[in-house]
């Protein structure tokens, strides 16, 4: 299941996020962050439902400080929906039901 969520770093960011034809949901996380670990199963459960309309990736902020700075990440977990690398929405829900409702309003 975790293969559905692509781990993005500074080397594959352009290819996986900026050049993506689909909007990309970025999950900013870190291994030491309990709420991030708690959110992961929720994100994994969402992934197959939106595979036609959105790509989901995760970025470890500890290992990718430039990407953390690029998006001005001040707290984690943080979920950004992006298009061509540009943030178009910040998702604030943390349950699958509410995240799906938020996404259904944003995605075409």
């Amino acid at each position, binding site marked *: 299941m975790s293969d559905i969520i692509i781990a993005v770093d500074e080397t594959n960011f352009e290819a996986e996020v900026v050049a993506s034809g689909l909007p990309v949901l970025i999950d900013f996380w870190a291994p030491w962050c309990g709420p991030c670990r708690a959110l992961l199963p929720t994100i994994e459960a969402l992934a197959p439902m939106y595979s036609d309309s959105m790509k989901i990736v995760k970025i470890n902020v500890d290992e990718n400080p430039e990407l953390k700075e690029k998006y001005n990440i001040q707290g984690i977990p943080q979920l950004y929906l992006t298009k061509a690398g540009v943030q178009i929405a910040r998702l604030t829900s943390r349950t699958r039901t*509410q995240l799906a409702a938020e996404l259904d309003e944003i995605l075409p």
Partner: protein
Amino acid sequence: MTFQAFSGSPALKTQMLNPVRELWNARALAPDVDLNWNSDGQASSISGTLAKTQDREEFEQRTGIPADLAALCEQLITVGVRKTDAQDNAAGFSLEGSGAVLEFGTEWLDAIRPGADLSMIVPQFARHCLDRLLKSDFDLAGHISPDLRDVGCQILFFWDRELAGQAIARGDWRDVQRAAILATANDTNPWGYGVATFLEAIAWPVRSVSREFAGLFEPFLFNWLMYLETAFMTDEERMDREHMLLGLKAMATAPRDEAGTIDFDPLESLPESSRVISSDHIMRTMDRMKAVRETARSNKDEVIRDLMNTLLTLIHGA
């Protein structure tokens, strides 16, 4: 992934389980919903030690046990025990809990038949918990609004159809999810919030809830066990507990900025909540609340043990 517990080998089960039993009986393992194994500064968990890994996939490959089930079993133990630092202890911590709760540490592993497919245990357990929540004699039944109850009944109806092999259309689930969000938003009962957020989060096909279930069940169970303490409180203490819950809900649902900060005081319009959440009140009532928790302990252990017994029955039946 197909699950076959201990690759069908009784010898492998014994080989994997014996070291765990030895360490658990010495109280050198700390149950945890996360797989912990040989991690710096962190005690190893029962399941992490069983498979000697912190990785979910490795755990499942080595044991043939769903990691979701392991997380759920460890979680039931964690809610029933108190872990405290103990520098005079070789493990660096001590676990305090009733024998009935502690024995589950290896009991669930002993119950597993080598070769059993345990992939449906968590979904079946989830179904059991939802059914129990909806019973009229459930401890929190009086705090569940009719709208929330309707949502719960609809989820249970869909789950039963799903477990019987029928497909539920995505649109039907969306209707239930919308009703769940609405019922949660409209719920004002202090004790109802824990139930509402649980129901809202599980409004999905039961197999797909399995991976998330331990994490979703934990706050619901905590709320349930906390409610059992109210039987040993004065009327004033019960009111204070309700104000506390309303305050915690206000803080949990307040909009936050990107740094996670709330730029206003969510308790401003809830002076009683603000009072009972103040450090002064907490410090002043600490000893009394500790006594209440201790008095309620056997009632809480009974609930936890009952949930453990349900899991054991499901495991034995697999």
